[in-house]
């Protein structure tokens, strides 16, 4: 104790042993854990065809994770479902199974958290909240859950006096007479994309879904889940539903859009541009209508990525979509997968069609042609 050097060696040794165990030891044990398929081959290897879990977060969701960390959401929300014997998390419906180390291997900042003033968010993306609900909740949680302690984040939104359909309507409990409209900033959209991406909806070799106890699950109270897009007016809901049908229909009279742009609107990297979050889809309606009537060919830049392919005039047979169908399907793609933009009306489509009367049918547009200022 009296020799400073020996004393230091002693105290660093005690610290060092713990460090060896928790940092070096744990790292050796699972520092290089990789995504894995649900079932391994019989020899324990990973089949090359198998789908690997967890997925990499999308770019927007990754940016959202940064926002989540910067706002300190982790102060009140955990992102971990505890093992059944150590907590009530699965019973509360916060996850279908306990979280395991592998769920987090692709995350840059692991935000497990250790305090639950708010509910656990590990599976928030599975709870079927619409993006609009999330935005409303971020803007003012108390407008949806009156007893919430979550701090409102109005600084992520711009209040709008002349709303368009994509803006978020806020009905504060204390000012019921007037509802306000706000427009999400890019940060709010990132955050919502991140929150929607939080899901552990896959099984891994080391963990399976917890068998539900039927008696218990019956009384589960799910709090204030507003049905998806409940606040959209009926005409808009109808238009979106009709548009979705066209998008998904692969028979005569359909649009068959999903085969290239995919059912999730993400397109295919390098081949078909995405519609979800696309600057083209959310941008000028006239361009979209023109593409929907005549098709598009050649190089096009979507969200900063170049694509070069041919899009024949949509419809089966090609170019057969009516004005109403085009209006519906465009309204649909502008309002799903997190997109939120104004609806397209039949009149708008008819007007564009009329203005292009001189153009020969089936003559596809090019991106550069469409980017020219509108005459």
């Amino acid at each position: 104790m009296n020799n400073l050097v020996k004393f230091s060696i002693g105290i660093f040794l005690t610290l060092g042993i713990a460090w060896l165990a928790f940092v070096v030891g744990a790292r050796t044990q699972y520092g290089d854990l990789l995504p894995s398929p649900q079932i391994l081959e019989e020899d324990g290897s990973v089949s090359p065809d198998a789908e690997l879990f967890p997925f990499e977060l999308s770019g927007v969701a990754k940016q959202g994770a940064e926002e989540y960390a910067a706002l300190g959401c982790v102060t009140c929300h955990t992102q971990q479902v505890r093992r059944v014997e150590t907590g009530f998390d699965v019973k509360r419906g916060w996850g279908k199974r306990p979280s395991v180390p592998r769920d987090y291997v692709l995350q840059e900042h692991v935000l497990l958290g250790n305090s639950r003033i708010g509910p656990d968010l590990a599976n928030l993306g599975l709870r079927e909240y619409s993006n609009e609900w999330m935005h409303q909740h971020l803007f003012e949680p108390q407008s949806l859950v009156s007893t919430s302690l979550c701090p409102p984040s109005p600084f992520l939104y711009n209040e709008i006096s002349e709303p368009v359909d994509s803006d978020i309507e806020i009905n504060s409990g204390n000012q019921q007479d007037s509802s306000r409209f706000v427009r999400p900033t890019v940060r709010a959209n990132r955050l919502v994309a991140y929150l929607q991406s939080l899901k552990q909806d896959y099984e891994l070799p080391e963990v399976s879904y917890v068998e539900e106890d039927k008696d218990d699950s019956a009384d589960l109270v799910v709090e204030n889940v507003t049905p998806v897009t409940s606040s959209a007016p009926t005409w808009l809901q109808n238009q979106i539903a009709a548009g979705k049908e066209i998008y998904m229909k692969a028979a005569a009279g359909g649009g068959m859009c999903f085969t290239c742009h995919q059912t999730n609107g993400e397109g295919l990297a390098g081949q078909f541009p995405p519609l979800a979050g696309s600057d083209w889809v959310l941008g000028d309606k006239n361009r979209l209508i023109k593409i929907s009537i005549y098709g598009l060919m050649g190089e096009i830049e979507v969200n900063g990525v170049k694509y070069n392919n041919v899009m024949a005039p949509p419809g089966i047979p090609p170019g057969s979509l009516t004005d109403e169908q085009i209006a519906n399907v465009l309204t649909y793609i502008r309002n799903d997968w997190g997109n939120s933009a104004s609806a397209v009306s039949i009149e708008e489509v008819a007007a564009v069609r009329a203005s292009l009367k001189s153009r020969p049918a089936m003559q596809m547009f090019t991106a550069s042609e469409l980017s020219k200022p509108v005459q």
Partner: protein
Amino acid sequence: MSDDSPMSANLPKNSEFSDEDIVKSHVELSKNKHEPTQNFLIAPLVFVFVFGCLIFVCSIQLAHSTNFFRLHPPVEIVELSPEEKEALRLERKISSGEKIFAARCASCHQANGLGIEGQFPPLASSEWVSANAGVITNIILKGLKGEILVNGKTYGTSAAVNMAAVPISDREIANVSTYVRQAWGNTAPEVTEEFVSAIRAEHSSKSDQWVGDELKSMFLDSFGE
């Protein structure tokens, strides 16, 4: 000494127990471990006993709760018979092929394999699909041009299949062909990766797409009628 006492000179009084005394007396204490108190024997014994019990309890707790220092809780290994293993392998192969099909083929041939009349030929119950595996493999590898007759209808008016431009591995071709040959009521045998590699090597020098008749003549006996 009490520093709360009123201070005449605004300075604390010197206590009789200076810092030097503190150090010296405590050093003395630790050198001479027998405290001159009557219970000097009992206290250490109690501590030794309590500490011993603690170590005992802790070791038992450790042995019970650490799961033998494994990363994951143990998983039961299910023993499968060779037939079940084979079925599982084929099932995984087909589900992988289904994903490849959905991503790369369904935009023309449709998810239901029926194609589009007049433009894209059907794959469901097509003899081109269920013929020798070399046909479908060759088409995926090099593409197809010109008119072909499928299920009594002529196709070939729209763009030719040109798969050569899209990189696709032998394994992916094997998986997607197997899927196509066993989906929608098709019942042709599976295509192996080795077979695809052999076909790829055999026709590696061919630079343009196949013509329907050319392929048909290569595998004539496998086309019915």
